């Protein structure tokens, strides 16, 4: 941890200074929004997950020992929380939820500013959560199989098999969408 400002903010945060922690988060928020947006596909889901993750990170700050970059540690917390949210959402009608959430913010239920309505976003939404999570981690965020397996609390083989199936389903969906566009 070489950044003196970051080191100071972490020390103040660990001592219970919430504003210092908010400032620390702001430095890394662009990256965390990118991760949560791509994993969850809507503004409402992203905000929910990041609130969860940021509070969890604050409470767990004692677990950060400064041996690795704070951004990497925070990214792991955010990623893990996004996986939890994916699993929870899989048991609900997430499209309806996203639409309702967006609608509550101004009647823009199908506004691309709030929900990913791309072909890929739609195709991802049709995958089971455990398949979606693995493709988002490996292909989206660049984790290797072992890292993804650790984050998902499963085996490397399970990651490989789920990834294979998820990729095949996504390619099929995207090919179909492209053919539809070319007509």
């Amino acid at each position, binding site marked *: 941890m070489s950044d003196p400002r970051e080191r100071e903010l972490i020390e103040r945060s660990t001592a219970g200074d919430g504003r210092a922690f908010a400032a620390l988060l702001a430095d890394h928020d662009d990256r965390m*929004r990118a991760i949560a947006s791509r994993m969850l596909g809507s503004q409402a889901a992203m905000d929910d997950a990041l609130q969860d993750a940021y509070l969890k990170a604050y409470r767990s700050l004692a677990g950060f020992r400064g041996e690795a970059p704070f951004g990497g540690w925070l990214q792991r917390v955010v990623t893990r929380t996004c996986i939890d949210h994916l699993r929870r959402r899989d048991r609900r009608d997430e499209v309806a939820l996203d639409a309702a959430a967006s609608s509550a913010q101004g009647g823009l239920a199908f506004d691309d500013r709030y929900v990913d309505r791309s072909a890929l976003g739609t195709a991802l939404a049709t995958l089971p959560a455990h398949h979606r999570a693995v493709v988002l981690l490996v292909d989206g965020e660049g984790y290797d199989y072992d890292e993804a397996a650790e984050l998902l609390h499963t085996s490397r083989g399970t990651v490989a098999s789920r990834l294979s199936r998820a990729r095949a389903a996504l390619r099929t969906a995207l090919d179909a969408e492209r053919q539809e566009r070319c007509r």
Partner: protein
Amino acid sequence: MTGERDPLLAAELARRPVFDHRPGFWDDLDRALRSDEVRPGPADHGELGPAGRGADAQPPPRIDRRGHRRPRPGRHHGRWLLAAAMALVAGGLASTLLPDRGGRTTSISTDDPTATTAPAPVVVGGPARIVDRDGEPLTSDLAVQVALATVDDLLATDPRYLGTDDADERARLLADGGVTIRTTIDSAAQRAALDARRNAGDGAGNGATVTAIDPATGAIVAAVDDDPVADSLFRRTVRPSDGFMAVVLAAAFDRGGVVPEDTIDGRGPCEFEMDGLDDPYQVVNHGQAPGAVATVRQQVIDRSDCAWVRLGLAVGLDTIVDTATALGVTGGVSAYPSLPLGAADVSVVDLTSAYATLAADGQLREPFLIERVTQGERVLYDHGAPVAQPAVSADSACRVTSVLASVRTADESEVVDPEAAGIGGRDGFSGAGIYTGFTASLAVTVSIELSGVDDAAAAATAVWNQFVVGYRPASTGGGGSPIELCPEPGRDPQPVVATP
């Protein structure tokens, strides 16, 4: 970060939109961060890296799953209660304290009328451990991916194993509940299956699916599979082809009154007028053999397609489906005239289980992969003693065994185990090969679907043989003996006539 990414999908995913925060996000977060309830404390157990717990750190408030605060127990409850509280907080506190979309902060009741001082369930902490039947961790070097994926699938979808209907709670238990899942897998069997694949047929067995079940219990002792999309062994299907003949024979002997020495017409080519079909169903014997009238036993040895279809029609296609169900085949079979030739998509577990049932004197014991789930000293699930269900009579099972043993002897195949009974075949459309059979203590299916193998059936047979020879389970009790004298039928042989 490695090159395991799919570049096209990675590019597509990178183009997904990045959203801005909703208005008020930072204000709400700031309020939550300044709340007395959310302060830096001990690290989350096992999730966020090594815990740096200070000597005077206080455990966080205990919050139940409905967001209610629980009284803190006395110190004598020990560390496991702290771990339990931390695990609960990790799953529930953050969302409990989150401001809702109107900016209001959800309060936590401190007067929960249901609050109790009873100890919480024992939570040891840490991610779930999956172990073999001897308690040793299942490791990927034993190529147990399909077994691990199946366990994963069972735990995620079946509430029995973790003792709760709450899917979130199950996920939490698996992630951080210190749960141990004892499977039925025998690592020695896994090793033997891998050796058999590697050594049989000059490598032609690589890629074989090997599934082995103990007939005495229904326990799945080995599961090896390279199919990258098989996320559950119970959904892994194979084309049984000749391997389905055991089911047809069981139907004929048990429900059709047929005995192995009865005769049936195997002449071909043959065709059958079927209700609902415009054109007759046409069958050509393997190798365009002319065929002959011969005993059922001989027609099975000769792989006479016309005799098999005639036998199936004589017994009744619905009867065959019913018998398959009784033997443990839970789906994938339909009453089509090609069914006696094995034209079906059957779960590899179901097919192996049907053979295990025949090995166990016709007594079906449901196949299972999870023996016991524990959390510390607490037992969340125990499979218990297997329950036997009569599928076919012991006499019928004996007769099927007798015919399959004749096939092994006549084939002069690589199956050298003198107690083995089984049959192999090749699917004419896909070229996939299969060998399925049993000894007194093991039912095994080997399937090879890889293209590029000249004779997949021979390769499957070789793998089957090497596996059975290489793996000698310690326990052989409970199952029937495949090779034994069956009761006399009490009548003279008679012709079996197909009546579509």
